[in-house]
């Protein structure tokens, strides 16, 4: 049966992972963010289409970063599986169906985790529509970018997340809060 996600996607997401190589930050393709996408290794096998994406602000050192697990079937078929966001500028608001206990909860600039479990529909083997619409808070809130990246490593079970070097960023004096 032709479906968007592989049958074992839940196992893949829950499994121990490694980075295939040390990711390199790309400072050119986005004017506001350092970005990279990196393939992931599970049980010594580099899984086709199973990737980690990261975006880190070039303007703000103390906020506005995200890391996302993705399944990439083709350039046109990229599916977010789970995402952590660190002190974003936007407000995220959950729908009225959940996650349980977090219905209609709004995260006003607060760090939050779009978990795989709350956004996956196992009976249909697909993610909910709308790019991971369900989120729960991140407690405690990481106080630094390195703390956030370490948190994502734990969340996504990427054992060698410490391979990742911090982007070469300097505080943008124009984007210091008044």
């Amino acid at each position, binding site marked *: 049966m032709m479906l968007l996600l592989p049958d074992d996607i839940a196992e893949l997401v829950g499994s121990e992972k490694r980075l295939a190589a040390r990711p390199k930050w790309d400072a050119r393709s986005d004017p506001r963010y350092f970005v990279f996408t990196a393939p992931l290794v599970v049980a010594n096998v580099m899984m086709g289409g199973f990737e980690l994406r990261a975006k880190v602000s070039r303007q703000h050192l103390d906020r506005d970063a995200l890391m996302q697990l993705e399944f990439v079937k083709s350039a*046109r078929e990229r599916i977010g599986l789970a995402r952590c966001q660190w002190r974003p500028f936007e407000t995220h608001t959950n729908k009225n169906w959940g996650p349980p206990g977090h219905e209609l909860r709004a995260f006003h600039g607060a760090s939050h985790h779009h978990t795989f479990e709350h956004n996956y529909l196992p009976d249909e083997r697909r993610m909910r529509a709308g790019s991971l619409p369900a989120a729960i808070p991140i407690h405690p809130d990481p106080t630094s970018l390195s703390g956030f990246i370490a948190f994502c490593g734990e969340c996504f079970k990427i054992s060698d997340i410490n391979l990742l070097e911090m982007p070469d960023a300097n505080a943008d004096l124009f984007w*210091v809060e008044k």
Partner: protein
Amino acid sequence: MTEVTETNLTISVDEAIRKLVSVQHFDAGSIVSMPVMYPSGASVVLEISAQAGRVRVCDRGGGYQEAEFDGAIKVYGRYAARSASEAGIQFNGRDLFVADVPMDRMDGAMSVIASCSAQAAAFCAGRVAERHERFAREALFDKLAAVFGADGFTRDVPMIGASKHEWHVDAVIRGDKAFTVFNSVSKAYVSAVGTAAKFHDLARLEQAPRRIAVVSSHQDLGDWSGVIASASDAVIEIIDTNDRFYKVGMAA
């Protein structure tokens, strides 16, 4: 839970309104979270800056990012450009913006840009959902091929209903005296209403075909179940057994 009184309701509404819009000011400009949501539930965030004495308002590429997460950048690019053109604003391939906003029209610029950004992202999310529809049809074809053989049914069949409107059904199995039509259906408005209309029109034919709606799960269909069931001979799940598919198909 706090008891609701007229006084604390007023206070709570005021507090909720204050939370809906927020702003942070920097030397380079201001960042505003708007009470407009992308499909993911994230709010539209605007960046307002002054460059060479001109005020620039942009969406910080927020709509682009939503599309990027869905692998729909090309679709977003087309729709954002069209949306920008219709609203008289600019699009540079990533940001929706107005480069020269009069100070006294900033509220209008913020509303228009936030609205265009959210609409373009929502259009992309709709297109991604359509992709799922196509996969649902292909899943149906795979299932019918497993049960009846690749040549045992016809795909994408045009059929004239009692109204004389020409419909397309996903698959048809022809029996000796009658035939059965299969159509995949989801809870998406267009899919559910379209299938119901199609099946009702086919049901009014003198020699009406058996009409089988195939869904990913009965639970997912929600209250569309009643709309679809009243127009169908059977509503079955794609994960139903081959035997069940065989029985409904060969009842023709």
